[in-house]
């Protein structure tokens, strides 16, 4: 047991958050040739490999059924793998499972708490499962429930909480043993914008304090805003894995929607750009990598078209994501044909 009474040891890194001693090239998470075939024959993971560096904020993206939740389930020992290796801060889940588990905090996609239990008991019980004595657990519970604005509701059963509060409670529960790796599986699904933004701020703070975070989300804006690395998984294979900035640079074309001061009767001809008039009178202009926004405005000025405001038609990452996923499907169909 460590001096502060925390028994859930995540050794090797001699962890105190924000001050890790990292052994050699050890990753926060390292996955090699991970495969999962369910008893019904569905091959959810077809041999994926990826590493997450300590301190990273990592997005694992993919369409529904891509294999994200299966991968997370295996990392957290909720799903048995078929083959492959998973190491968490150097601890192999096959040979050093308890130490590996002690390093992870999980916020799952589905609610998985006893709704009849009080908010405080849910987090203190979780601390107990990690060997944290009750006195220490109560102190930590106050800290995290305060931070996640649930302290006033601590004596209420979890079923009395709103959807957003339940999600925050799952985050507090996942953090109670102060894990070095926090995995969040769609933590902001169904949460309103204000709470989502406050959750983003909170996650950025704990990441800045040293916690490695892996996030899956359907809100690609969320991934773009928070994450420094991204892996895109589709049909059980990783189809992209790079720094967020590198991935976004791959975007060869962006489409902007312009509000115009004077309505146009038809789409203007803008040399070097594709322009289309929308039903609501706004103008869509596609800008490829060879042109800048200045070029576009120059072309509009030349035609005396005044622009009031401008926005992206789609989130940049969303656009790339769709292109990658659809491109892969088309490629597979071609190969099959």
């Amino acid at each position, binding site marked *: 047991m460590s001096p502060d009474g925390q028994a859930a040891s995540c050794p090797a890194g001699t962890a105190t958050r924000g001050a890790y001693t990292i052994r050699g090239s050890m990753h926060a998470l390292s996955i090699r040739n991970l495969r999962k075939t369910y008893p019904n024959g569905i091959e959810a993971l077809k041999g994926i490999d990826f590493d997450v560096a300590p301190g990273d904020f990592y997005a694992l993206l993919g369409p529904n059924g891509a294999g994200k939740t299966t991968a997370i389930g295996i990392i957290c020992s909720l799903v048995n793998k078929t083959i492959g290796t998973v190491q968490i801060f150097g601890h192999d889940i096959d040979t050093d499972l*308890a130490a590996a588990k002690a390093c*992870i905090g999980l916020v799952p996609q589905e609610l998985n708490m006893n709704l009849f239990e009080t908010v405080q008991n849910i987090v203190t019980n979780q601390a107990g499962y990690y060997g944290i004595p009750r006195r220490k657990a109560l102190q930590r519970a106050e800290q995290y429930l305060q931070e996640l604005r649930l302290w006033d509701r601590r004596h209420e059963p979890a079923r009395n909480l709103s959807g957003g509060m339940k999600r925050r409670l799952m985050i507090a529960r996942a953090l109670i043993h102060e894990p070095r790796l926090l995995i969040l599986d769609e933590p902001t699904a169904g949460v309103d914008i204000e709470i989502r933004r406050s959750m983003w701020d909170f996650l950025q703070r704990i990441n800045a304090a040293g916690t490695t975070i892996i996030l899956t989300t359907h809100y690609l804006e969320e991934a773009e805003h928070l994450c420094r690395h991204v892996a895109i998984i589709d049909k059980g294979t990783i189809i992209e894995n790079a720094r967020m900035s590198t991935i976004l640079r791959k975007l060869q074309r962006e489409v902007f929607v312009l509000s115009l001061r004077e309505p146009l009767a038809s789409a203007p001809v803008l040399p070097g750009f594709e322009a289309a008039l929308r039903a609501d009178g706004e103008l869509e202009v596609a800008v490829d990598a060879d042109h800048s926004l200045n070029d576009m405005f120059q072309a509009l000025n030349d035609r005396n078209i005044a622009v009031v405001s401008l926005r992206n038609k789609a989130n940049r990452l969303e656009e790339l994501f769709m292109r990658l996923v659809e491109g892969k499907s088309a490629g597979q169909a071609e190969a099959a044909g």
Partner: protein
Amino acid sequence: MNLSLNFVALKTIVRKEVVRVLRIWVQTIFPPAITMTLYFIIFGNLIGRRIGDMGGYDYMQYIAPGLIMMSVITNSYGNVVSSFFGAKFGRHIEEMLVSPMSNATIILGHVAGGLIRGLLVGALVTVVALAFTRVEVRHPLITLSMVLLSSTVFALAGFINAIFAKKFDDISIIPTFVLTPLTYLGGVFYSISLLPEFWQRLSLANPILYMVNAFRYGVLGTSDISIATAYAIVLLFVVVLFAVSLALLNRGIGIRE
């Protein structure tokens, strides 16, 4: 294994189970007391007066240890099966599965929860029995050890039932079609010496017979079977059921895909 971690985790599960039992006392503690009061009134008082002595004791005295043991067994089983299956059904079993505590700790914590509820209900039924008859414990050590061992056996059996259960029906099938018949045929209400020889021999295959009789021996000093045999059988069940529970949990049967 990190012993201090697992000790704290064990205390946490036990605390959680006690909180659960007390939170829903109307479902967990109260009904067995009512049921056993009815047994004492109907079987002990009304019908028992016509039956006369059994094993040298009046009928009420004779059935009291059996009824206490019956309530301990059913409540130990019921607590673990409903708590663990409830955790599976509500998916909050994942709280334990993602943690570094050992599978043995998960089993021991739930068994302890079953033991505590079994003993609480057993104590309450004893108080009820005292309102109807005298209960003098002849062999306290045998009485206590047998109630603890029997409670452990059925808490473990409840745990295995919960592991395999996929729906709520599955946690009532075993208690209804196996546990209750075995309990009723386990010598709670009669001495097996009253049965024809064939049925006497068949009764010896019923593990509950050994528990009830050993417990009755502890309380009254009378038993249909050898106490040493009873201890051997009950201990064997504890070891085998714990090993089976641990193997199932280690393989993730019923809890991991």
